[in-house]
């Protein structure tokens, strides 16, 4: 990498990952005052730099081990510490790369859906990314709360500018999201009372003698419920379908894949980074509860997805089911399933971003996103639909796409644990996904026969090819290619990164 010529930059990467998007976000309105079109390259530059530094940080971690960056050179228990290890290094790269792709992809759809509001949109978009990156990189529990709120507040604003009904969906999300964040804040307060520390590594050191304390148990419960609201774990998912269905296309493609996955990351971090794995396995039956919650989320998410007529809404319920995969995988509490869960985070970010990108392209062409809008799309937009089909196969879990391998690890983990009901849930949801997506393929090829002459004739009128604009198509193709590559290189990803990212149970 070029950056290795500048050791100072490599050393400061953890801080720059946050500072660059934040500063660029605050300056975006100023740039917009000079020339409105300049804000787009400005935003791309910020995200490009964030991606570059994220990759540098991950490489540094892979080579030299965990990075501890002290803000303002204050010693860890007192000052705020940024820690990059294999787990959040991977998350950083995922978040910044997804944000970069969505930013390129979103240019056309934002110009169409939010004319005149591009400057503010780009400003809040960057703040949103800053929030996500901050949640992931920080090693301080209270700092995490602040970034959680930055990400959430930016999300509320971005969702509220969507189509009709979006402000009300966003308002409900605010109420639910604030309860979640406040529970998290309360949990930190409880831990602070008994330990006097806010640093995650310090908490992990101070907590074990206090595991019997009722304060610690209450704090743990608040943590789990608070973060379950943020990740939309069934039955706390009610805010998600409305909010993500009505958000602007570019926002859905950014927030839907990242907010839930970042929350799953926070859960993993609290379970294994703040508390010891033994706490959630033997002191409280947290893992068993998570496993049950995951299984219920998979079943209900899959069934509710079947009932939807709107494409984006269907995707929202698929997210609910996918969150169930990850939570259930963590709840299985063995090494294989845990690796599967982390691998599934990576796959799911790419898959969900890709699917919401397809929804955005349909919306760009048809001005709505019902399942029926896919009619004849295979003829009209062959490249978009090829990418869509690839990602759909990955969600279903067909090899060699990435989705197959993460499900495979989860399945192996479930078999090791003898949890047949989780195996059944995985297979059930895969089958439901087959139905969901082949139904769309059917509509897309025009086999639906709504006029009753589909059997005999050749369809008659030739549909002209009207592909999506290149700036929307290329990011989608990259997402589709990535999901196949994640499948081919899953061994390398597990061997080089994920096996160090999660504890061996």
């Amino acid at each position, binding site marked *: 990498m070029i950056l290795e010529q500048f050791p100072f930059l490599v050393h400061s990467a953890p801080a720059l990952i946050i500072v660059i998007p934040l500063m660029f976000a605050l300056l975006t309105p100023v740039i917009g005052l000079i020339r409105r079109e300049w804000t787009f390259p400005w935003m791309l530059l910020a995200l490009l730099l964030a991606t570059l530094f994220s990759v540098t940080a991950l490489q540094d971690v892979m080579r030299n081990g965990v990075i501890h960056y002290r803000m303002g050179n204050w010693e860890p228990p007192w000052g705020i510490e940024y820690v990059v290890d294999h787990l959040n290094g991977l998350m950083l790269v995922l978040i910044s790369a997804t944000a970069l792709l969505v930013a390129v992809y979103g240019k056309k759809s934002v110009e169409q859906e939010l004319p005149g509001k591009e400057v503010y949109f780009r400003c809040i978009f960057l703040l949103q990314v800053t929030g996500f990156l901050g949640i992931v990189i920080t090693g301080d529990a*209270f700092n995490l*709360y*602040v970034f959680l*709120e930055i990400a959430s*507040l930016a999300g*509320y*604003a971005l969702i*509220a500018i969507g189509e*009709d*009904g979006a*402000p*009300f969906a*966003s*308002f409900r999300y*605010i*109420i639910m999201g*604030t*309860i979640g964040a*406040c529970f998290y*804040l*309360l949990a930190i*307060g409880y831990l*602070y*009372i008994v330990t006097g520390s*806010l640093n995650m590594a310090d908490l992990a050191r101070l907590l074990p003698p206090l595991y019997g304390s009722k304060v610690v148990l209450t704090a743990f419960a608040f943590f789990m419920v608070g973060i379950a609201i943020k990740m939309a774990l069934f039955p706390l998912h009610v805010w998600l379908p409305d909010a993500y269905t009505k958000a602007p296309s570019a926002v859905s493609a950014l927030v839907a894949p990242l907010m839930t996955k970042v929350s799953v990351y926070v859960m993993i971090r609290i379970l294994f980074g703040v508390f010891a794995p033994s706490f959630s396995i033997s002191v409280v039956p947290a893992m068993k509860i998570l496993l049950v919650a995951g299984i219920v989320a998979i079943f209900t998410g899959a069934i509710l997805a079947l009932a939807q007529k709107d494409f984006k809404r269907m995707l929202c319920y698929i997210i609910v089911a996918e969150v169930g995969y990850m939570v259930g995988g963590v709840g299985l509490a063995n090494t294989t399933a845990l690796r599967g869960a982390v691998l599934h985070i990576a796959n799911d970010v790419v898959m969900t971003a890709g699917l919401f990108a397809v929804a955005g392209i349909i919306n760009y062409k048809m001005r709505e996103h019902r399942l029926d809008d896919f009619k004849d799309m295979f003829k009209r937009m062959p490249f978009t639909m090829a990418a869509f089909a690839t990602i759909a196969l990955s969600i279903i879990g067909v090899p060699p796409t990435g989705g197959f391998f993460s499900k495979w690890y989860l399945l192996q983990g479930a078999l090791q644990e003898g949890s047949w009901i989780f195996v059944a849930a995985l297979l059930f949801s895969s089958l439901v996904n087959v139905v969901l997506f082949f139904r769309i393929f059917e509509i897309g090829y025009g086999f639906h026969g709504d006029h009753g002459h589909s059997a005999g004739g050749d369809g008659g009128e030739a549909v002209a090819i009207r592909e999506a604009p290149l700036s929307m198509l290329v990011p989608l193709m990259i997402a589709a290619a990535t999901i196949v590559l994640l499948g081919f290189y899953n061994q390398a990803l597990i061997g080089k990164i994920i096996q160090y990212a999660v504890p061996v149970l």
Partner: protein
Amino acid sequence: MIELVIAKYNYWIYVILMMIGFYAMIVKTNLVKKIIGMNIFQTAIILFYISTAYKMGGATLPIMTDAQAHGHEAVLVDGVINPLPHVLMLTAIVVMVATLGVALAIVIHIYRRYNTLNEDEILKVMK
């Protein structure tokens, strides 16, 4: 029982306030009342944090008036309250104000669209 309430009255107050806020957020149909509930809820947590900083026996604010002159003098930890929860809550208040601002802006948007702040009526229009 009554001793338990009196000995830890600050926690009882915070729990009661928090439940009032929680109730308003869930039960009230007026959107602005929901926001007021949300504010009570958040304020309760702030009061909880602040009360944890208190120390028995006349501890005061950690303002070192003689720190400049006699820098070598040790600070008596029992003589001052814990400043950290106050600092944390300064941040939490900022977050709270920002949340309030976004929520109110969205409520204005909703009012312009539906001409009402009643949740049931909005849902009826959306159907």
